[in-house]
């Protein structure tokens, strides 16, 4: 018979914060593990491309310090998933340094497991050759070119590599991980029902995001039972309600009733959300459907080029009312000029966002007209070198300011630039270009584990 198993999620994203007493009270309740997700693709592809962390080292160190000390002193496992943000080897190494520094400063001793999720180009090509890669909509089939273009590729591990690490360690630092696997790994290993483990993990991974009204990030506890789980927040002024917990299946998921994990699909169509008291919800009736083939998502980032931006604004109603033709004329004149300066060889892209028309929604904007008394133009020039992007941007801003309209005769000054210089270098810019699933030979084969005694 499986007894109640309490698990603690420190917060939704390591470095975003939580109250220290939330952790202490949860440890006092006897939680059997502490978990924390550190990853997201939300901030953009640059974190995977460069190995940088979104939150500062100080912010990540503070959060890590509290949960590491609490876990080690209480003798319970700590699992940090998608370490360093993107989970690549650079991110993972950065996070390992933070962890070992805290251990030395606090004189903490524990066994550390570091699970790698970065994939070499050669390994991904082998998987592709063996028919082990499939595109996810809306992506196209993976090409060798896609693989060669990648700066970093990570695979998103399921529960199995974390379970393997937990057998030989106290603290698990995992590369890119399924968020829910951080929390499902331990209870699955103990024999709790997959539907209970995965649904609890799915809610825990966002910390206190699933409370009715969250003021700031904080902690959440799930108590797993044989066929259901209870979930409640650690901050006493927060409440979980059946609706707030049910709503959490909506968050960041394309389909709220089918949540895809490497080993199967969590089904929530029949789930019942019941209030236990005014801040605790019991969740039961979810289902888990094992996958025909075990599959992990891969993520990759590539260099899109070097960007120089120009910000300009227009107040003249005569220009605003013919903005499309004004932009077309500018583009024609600019390209003619660039043919004589840059030539046809180098590749470059000029993107203009028109705020006051469709700057926010782009192709999705139904109200695609400039109706206000001023518009802002944001030009982005992207090419293979910073020098080229800046030189194109310099021609662009000069031509834009004098771009004529038929109503005015003579040389006009049609654009207001808020900054001097008007051209701002943005450096290298990146894009996510892999949206594929890989079917590895075994659930652990893409994720080698390093063990360290600290």
């Amino acid at each position, binding site marked *: 018979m499986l007894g109640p198993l309490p698990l603690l999620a420190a917060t939704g994203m390591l470095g975003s914060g939580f109250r220290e007493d939330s952790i202490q009270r949860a440890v006092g309740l006897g939680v059997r593990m502490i978990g924390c997700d550190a990853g997201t*693709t939300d901030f953009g592809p640059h974190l995977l491309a460069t190995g940088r962390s979104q939150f500062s080292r100080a912010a990540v160190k503070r959060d890590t310090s509290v949960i590491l000390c609490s876990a080690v002193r209480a003798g319970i496992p700590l699992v940090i998933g998608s370490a360093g943000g993107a989970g690549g080897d650079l991110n993972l190494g950065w996070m390992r340094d933070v962890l070992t520094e805290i251990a030395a400063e606090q004189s903490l001793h524990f066994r550390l497991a570091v699970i790698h999720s970065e994939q070499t180009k050669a390994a991904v090509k082998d998987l592709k050759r063996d028919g082990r890669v499939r595109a996810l*909509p809306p992506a196209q089939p993976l090409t060798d070119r896609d693989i060669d273009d990648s700066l970093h590729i990570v695979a998103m591990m399921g529960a199995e590599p974390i379970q393997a690490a937990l057998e030989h360690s106290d603290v698990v630092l995992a590369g890119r991980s399924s968020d829910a696997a951080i929390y499902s790994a331990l209870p699955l290993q103990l024999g709790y029902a997959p539907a209970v483990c995965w649904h609890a993990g799915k809610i825990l991974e966002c910390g206190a995001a699933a409370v009715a009204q969250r003021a700031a990030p904080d902690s959440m506890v799930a108590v797993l039972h044989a066929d259901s789980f209870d979930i409640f927040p650690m901050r006493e002024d927060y409440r979980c309600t059946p609706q707030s917990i*049910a709503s959490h299946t*909506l968050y960041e998921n*394309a389909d709220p009733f089918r949540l895809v994990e490497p080993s199967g699909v969590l089904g929530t169509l029949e789930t019942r959300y019941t209030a236990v008291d005014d801040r605790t919800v019991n969740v039961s009736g979810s289902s888990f459907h094992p996958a025909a083939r075990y599959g992990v998502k891969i993520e990759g980032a590539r260099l*899109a080029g070097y960007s120089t931006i120009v910000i300009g604004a227009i107040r003249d109603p005569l220009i605003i009312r013919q903005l499309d033709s004004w932009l077309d004329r500018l583009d024609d004149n600019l390209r003619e000029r660039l043919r004589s300066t840059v030539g046809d060889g180098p590749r470059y892209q000029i993107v203009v966002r028109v705020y006051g028309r469709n700057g926010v*929604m782009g192709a999705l904007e139904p109200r695609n007209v400039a109706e206000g008394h001023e518009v802002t133009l944001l030009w982005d020039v992207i090419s293979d070198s910073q020098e080229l992007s800046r030189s194109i941007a310099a021609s662009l801003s000069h031509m834009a300011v004098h771009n004529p309209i038929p109503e005015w005769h003579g040389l006009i000054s049609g654009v207001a630039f808020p900054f001097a210089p008007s051209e701002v270098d943005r450096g290298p810019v990146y894009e996510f270009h892999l*949206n594929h699933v890989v079917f590895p030979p075994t659930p652990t084969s893409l994720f080698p584990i390093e063990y360290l005694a600290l």
Partner: protein
Amino acid sequence: MKTLGQCAKLIRSKNAGPFWLTIDVMFDDPATYRAVRDQRVVTVELIGRLYGQPADQISVFEHDAALAIKISLPRPQSSGSPLDTDVFGGQQYAPLLDLNVDIDAAGLSK
């Protein structure tokens, strides 16, 4: 008659991974949710027209337990890529605010 923006407790959009956009229309009372659901205020055809995207790429879900209608569609470009306009996908819900809901017909007084 009310607008969807007046009826909902929260309308939000967000990335669901770097390649998908998802929009949640959430209500705080079951009667309003049911009125919106049963009047089919949000359909794949309507979203396709409003957002200029093919209807067969769009999904609409009715989530009774969450009192929410959910819409998912592929992003025109991946999050943070050169053509992107909204890295988090957080400001893509505004066109839904003005949809009409026949709330009087549902006997509600909100």
